[in-house]
């Protein structure tokens, strides 16, 4: 099911991305930061959608690779001068991919509920590594004082010190990632990945190696999550072990499901809805002091309500709106 090619989904996706593109022209620092955060999370959720929506691998540890990508920014930035966006960005992807490959060797051997528990446990191992040891100031987190820039022949083309530069870079990365993933999903590899999701045994009988296909998808998703984490850390120039934490993995799944799994475009809707919902719930003037302080309670209730009542996510609802899928739960795995 390629919901991204559905006209209603594609139209809404274009509208949301254009809205994000317009923020620097009317918004202040706060609005711009929220919009950049939405786009970073959209990238992160795309990596989750690749695994859950297309590979049938319910991961509860994707934040580990996101966090590693964020730490790559810290490791690859010189202390008192601007690092290179290319070096740090590619380094973040490489680190995410390497970590995903190494844990993937073990993790993709497991299935179903084992997969959920094992991805969570390995992610927590990464969290413990940064939280309990002295690497990058341990549990206190660390600051990147000068954000990276892209300089070619002495001319600075992109400087992440400028919020607008960062915002448009992330937007471009999201568009490229969406396009690349659409191509990937339609490629023989993408077809094989979805085949493994549907019927592992039959794919093996056809001569495919499900283990390698899953491992490849897991590694790619790790690279994408690493890139997302690097861009996210560039917003505030701050990294902490919480970026590898299970809460963020949970948030990512909520976004992916809210947007609609297996639709790619849903990643953007899910990220936008959850980030905006959080901003509303945290706003004292809108919801009152008690809820703003304890906004996790309404958020939890909304998540529980979504599971019990609402299926197929936003992309599913949009495609049903278009009428072509009828009353069937579109976008569900």
């Amino acid at each position, binding site marked *: 099911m390629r919901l991204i090619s559905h006209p209603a989904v594609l139209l809404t996706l274009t509208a949301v991305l254009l809205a994000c593109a317009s923020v620097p022209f009317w918004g202040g620092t706060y609005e711009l930061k929220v919009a950049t955060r939405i786009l970073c999370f959209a990238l992160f959720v795309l990596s989750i959608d690749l695994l*859950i929506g297309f590979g049938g691998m*319910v991961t*509860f540890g994707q934040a580990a690779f996101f966090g590693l990508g964020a730490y790559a920014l810290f490791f690859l930035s010189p202390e008192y001068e601007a690092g290179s966006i290319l070096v740090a960005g590619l380094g973040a992807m490489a680190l995410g991919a390497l970590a995903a490959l190494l844990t993937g060797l*073990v993790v993709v*051997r*497991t299935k*179903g*509920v*084992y997969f*959920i*528990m*094992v991805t*969570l*446990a*390995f992610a*927590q*191992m990464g969290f*413990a*590594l940064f939280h*309990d*040891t*002295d690497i990058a100031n341990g549990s206190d987190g660390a600051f990147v004082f000068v954000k990276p820039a892209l300089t070619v022949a002495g001319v600075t083309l992109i400087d992440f010190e400028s919020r607008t530069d960062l915002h448009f870079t992330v937007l471009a990365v999201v568009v490229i990632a969406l396009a690349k993933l659409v191509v990937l999903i339609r490629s023989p590899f993408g077809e094989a990945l979805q085949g493994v999701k549907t019927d592992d045994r039959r794919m093996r009988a056809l001569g495919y190696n499900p283990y390698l296909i899953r491992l490849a998808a897991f590694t790619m998703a790790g690279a994408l999550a690493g890139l997302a984490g690097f861009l996210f850390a560039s917003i505030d120039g701050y990294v902490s072990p919480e970026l590898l934490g*299970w809460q963020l993995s*949970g948030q990512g*799944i*909520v976004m992916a*499901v809210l947007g609609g799994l297996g639709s790619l475009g849903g990643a953007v809707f899910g990220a936008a809805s959850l980030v905006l919902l959080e901003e509303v719930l945290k706003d004292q003037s809108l919801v009152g002091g008690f809820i703003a302080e*304890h906004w*996790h*309670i309404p*958020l*939890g*209730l*909304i*998540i*529980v309500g*979504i*599971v*019990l009542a609402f299926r197929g996510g936003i992309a599913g609802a949009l495609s049903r709106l278009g009428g072509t899928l009828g009353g069937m739960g579109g976008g569900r*795995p």
Partner: protein
Amino acid sequence: MDPVFLAIQLLNGIQQGLLLFLIASGLTLIFGVMGVINLAHGAFYMLGAYAAFSLTEMTGDLLLAILLGIPLALALGWVFERVFFRWLYEREHLEQVLLTYGLILIIDESRSVIWGNDPHGVPVPDWLDFSIPLTETLSYPVYRLAVSVVCLALAGAMAYVLGRTRLGMRIRAGEADRETVAALGVDIGTLYAVLFAAGIGLAAFGGMLAAPIESVFPGMGEQVLIISFVVVVIGGIGSVKGAFLAALAIGLVDVFGQVFLPQFASVVVYGLMAAVLIWRPAGLFGRG
């Protein structure tokens, strides 16, 4: 290293492992029989510990607090099963993960509303508050021994109920074939509710026993949840025997890891999990 010191660590590891078994056995039973992955299991452990804190303040004794707390925990488990979890039995793992993730947010934030975010200590009952002297400087607290004995007794009781009683037979039958058991006239809804309440009761009871040792603090639920997952994965999902052996192994590895590799103790625990999974992807006693 001093042999008495090592013996104390050995006892600590066993005690920690036995306590972990209580919590993980609830998780593995709920998954094995009902097919539900419950991320909120650790949250009930946390609630148990906080309940022990408040009830001990009210009654003045941990034992009274536990006697009051257990029926409360069972009732809470029953209510959660009837309101939330019974809708999850036929649903996908992903939906179970999402719903129980939402429940963690609600339970954890409610804890913050009721008890705030400060850690609290819980006193050991006076009649257990002494240590057995081993050498001139080293001694072993009786409370920890008592916890080990209680956990062992419960493990024995569980083995008896599951293996030798009619209820245990129904639980094992429900695990094997839900439809057939229901067709034979067993009220599967009530059976599940009872079992779920028992699982939650075990988690909460674990929290109450741990409260004087670990003290009571906000993130305690997640810590236990993740380490319980490691136990369940190593032992094989649904296997109580596997959970028992894995919990003891994890308890020992964790305690000795903290002695020899203090910064990397938790990494060693996950390394053990990885090694077992490479060897047996479905855990020690898992099927499939």
